[in-house]
């Protein structure tokens, strides 16, 4: 595995599409190395049956979409998480707590 990782790190020519598993898979196959399993960039599974199931819901097999506005550069995934945090923060302030006694 370490040889596979080392070769991939040196040989992958398409840094622009680095998160794309097909990128380094193609390089590995070109070097005659058969990857035994795809492992996602964030430690999850993108291959296999579980990946196929998740892939049916959200297509993740592509480079990250980003939003660039002036100095601000953020991936859509991170922006969604930040927006979700803001929504939950506001809901936590306004939603009544169960069992709270009102005067």
């Amino acid at each position, binding site marked *: *595995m370490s040889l596979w*990782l080392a070769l991939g790190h040196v040989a992958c020519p398409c840094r622009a599409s*680095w998160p794309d598993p097909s990128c380094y898979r193609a390089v590995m196959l070109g070097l005659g190395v058969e990857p035994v399993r795809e*492992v996602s960039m964030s*430690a999850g599974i993108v291959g296999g049956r579980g990946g196929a199931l998740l892939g049916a819901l959200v297509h993740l097999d592509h480079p990250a979409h980003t939003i660039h506005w002036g100095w601000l550069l953020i991936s859509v995934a991170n922006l969604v998480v930040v927006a979700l945090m803001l929504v939950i*923060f506001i*809901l936590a*302030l306004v939603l009544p707590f169960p069992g709270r006694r009102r*005067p």
Partner: protein
Amino acid sequence: MSAKPGRPMWTWRVRDAAVRAFPPERLLPDRQPVYVASWIYVFGVLTIAAFIVVLVSGAWLGVEGPAWWHTSKVGLFVNSLHLWSTELFFFFMVIHLWGKFWMAAWRGKRQLTWITGAVAFVASIGAAFTGYLSQQNFASQWIASEGKDGLNSAGVGAVFNVLNFGQMFMWHILLLPLVLGVLVVLHVLLVRKHGVVPPFAAKAPVAFGSGEADPDAGGDGPVGEAGPR
């Protein structure tokens, strides 16, 4: 090691000092101020719950090793559990931070509670960063090669070498969890000692477990109503 006549042993003195600093009735209160009945007060304990999952899943990964977490189904599951509990840990912690910031949670002699929380947040970022470096996959190599330039440009130098896997792994599984664990315990003890910060509109109505006013509280409005939780 016997005590001198008339002077208690050091173990008794340590216990006495600990009980005086953290009275048991404050550590496990059965009553809380009424303003605690709000969802915004839930995110601290959610952060701790996620942290426990992070520690347990991380210990499991540490026992089994990289070959296991990259190739076996259970290993991949525990690896993902470690990642997503970390994501939730930060998610809850940041909302907790926002809530406490806008409440000015350092009021009422709670400066140390705020500081331990803030330092724990910074230590968590370091723990997460070294965790990404310890994945043993393409991402960790990519993050290390990019991160070294950023850290070098900030003048960090070779004392913290992100290309040194052994060093980063030890930071991730030993040093930073130890620091973070101590800070979290201290943070919780301080919260128990001083109580949760009241909203601006309320004075703390009760000292924990006593039903009496808490002179350390930082509120400045009308007194709220105590209620069981």
